């Protein structure tokens, strides 16, 4: 049962996120990345994805910027839009009930079809500890045949790597077993991708290999890669160092440090947060506070 109007967004790009499994307290990379998109672009909520497939939760406005809009109730799955960018975003905040993941995928696919989005991008992640030797760079993409026809050039320019197919039985030389798509920890990502291929939907998956923990840097990395393709902002995230020290020696040391940093970034571009030109930053929402629990009791010391 959905309470979101359909057939209403032709020419819109639709971004949705997928959670990594299992649910983690710090949140998931796709979810965090979508938080950054919604928060930075100041997107407005236009509907609820009211479904029995998600664990219920509720809270006040996670993107509140001033006192007036703090007390606004938000539900587990909501749709936000930025009309000027022809962008719609589905944010999913709660785990999918294990016995209902197929049904949830079907609901998503039918909603995407009914809404008529020109393309759909799924933000996801996969366990970093279950990679093959060829998968040591973090970013991967998947694309359905119908979206490949329009986006092939852009992807070639971005030099992204397509998610590799893995042998079914690693190490066993079995001619019969075909390599297959495997996204451990990706939740419904693989199912959603294969369903979209079957339904001929223009859908792409952007995923990052990561581990559980503080996934904020992963979220920034994923959203920057997304921005490279969709140009949601003017540029990328800058990692700025503000030096207030006046000492000449300190400034010289910092310049040497910066030189080494640039060399490091040159050889390891996937770790780069460097920007090319002045730009807007991604805005971190207020709901990201206290990701690791409450303040520390002073009696501990």
């Amino acid at each position: 049962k959905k309470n979101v109007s359909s057939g209403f967004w032709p020419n819109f790009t639709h971004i949705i996120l997928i959670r990594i499994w299992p649910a983690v307290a710090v949140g998931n990379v796709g979810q965090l990345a979508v938080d950054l998109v919604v928060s930075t672009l100041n997107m407005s909520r236009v509907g609820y994805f009211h479904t029995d497939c998600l664990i219920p939760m509720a809270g006040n406005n996670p993107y509140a910027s001033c006192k007036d809009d703090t007390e606004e109730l938000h539900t587990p799955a909501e749709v936000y839009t930025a009309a000027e960018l022809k962008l719609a975003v589905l944010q999913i905040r709660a785990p999918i009930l294990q016995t209902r993941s197929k049904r949830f995928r079907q609901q998503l696919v039918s909603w995407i079809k009914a809404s008529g989005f020109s393309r759909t991008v799924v933000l996801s992640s996969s366990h970093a500890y279950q990679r093959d030797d060829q998968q040591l760079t973090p970013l991967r993409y998947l694309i359905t045949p119908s979206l490949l026809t329009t986006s092939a050039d852009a992807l070639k320019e971005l030099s992204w790597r397509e998610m590799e197919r893995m042998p079914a039985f690693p190490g066993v030389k079995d001619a019969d077993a075909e390599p297959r798509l495997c996204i451990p920890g990706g939740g419904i990502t693989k199912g959603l991708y294969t369903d979209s291929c079957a339904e001929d939907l223009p859908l792409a998956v952007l995923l990052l290999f990561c581990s559980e923990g503080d996934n904020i840097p992963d979220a920034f990395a994923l959203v920057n890669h997304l921005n490279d393709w969709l140009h949601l902002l003017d540029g990328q995230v800058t990692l700025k160092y503000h030096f207030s020290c006046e000492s000449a020696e300190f400034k010289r040391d910092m310049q040497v440090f910066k030189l080494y940093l640039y060399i490091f970034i040159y050889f390891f571009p996937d770790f780069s947060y460097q920007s090319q030109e002045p730009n807007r930053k991604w805005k971190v929402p207020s709901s990201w506070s206290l990701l690791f629990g409450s303040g520390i009791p002073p009696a501990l010391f």
Partner: protein
Amino acid sequence: PRVEQQSSSQSLPFIPLLFPRAVHLHWSPDVTELLRSGNKLQCSSFILAVGHNAASFLSAYVLASANWDAAGRALAWNERSRSGAGRSGEESACVFYRHKDEPSVLICNVTCHIAEDQLFEWTEKVFDCLQSRELAVTVLSDRSVADYKTPDYLCSSSAPFLRSLHSSAFADRPVCPSLEQPNIITGLPAAVLNHCQVHRIAAVVYQCYSDVAGPDSVTVESYKPVLNKLGRSIQVNSPPSTDVLRKFLRSAEIQSNLYI
């Protein structure tokens, strides 16, 4: 509770076996008759208590006045249900009460665990029976203070305390501060609030964060500020005596004497 339970089962006997986790509503005969004729329960105020302390509060301060009829019960079997004689013979822990003089006021005490996959169904089935125009929903919910996140460490003297969360259609002022970021609510209060938000029903959840795990009189009394908002039609009892409170706060964990 002093009121007698009258109920009749609407469902066929073998359905619980086919779908053991399905939620079943059993209403009293007059309510069953009303629903069967295609009407919905006229309801202006629905008050839901989730948890032992919330339910004890309503039982001691509101239901003890004997102006209430048992209107029905909800059964939701799951792996945490304690059944004596099997699923159908279990004492129901979701009981509905209707005010005798003001039948549009409905109270429900929920003291059992409703599993994550049953929450949506419970909410939809109950609200399907209620007419939603001019409906106001109030939910009282128990929670451990360990789930409350705050930048300044809370010392134990600040608990128990109330926090509120309300739907966009709720126009009144809550009796306590709003739940701060990044805290959220889960479980049945969240399912009810989501339903009300999507269907534009005025609803407010009062969550009580307590440092005591089980039934506790101090936690029960912390819900008192809500009494003024429960509707003019509900006559609130003068503060119940200790004996009355003690009756409702019998410990559920007699065998656990780890912390005496």
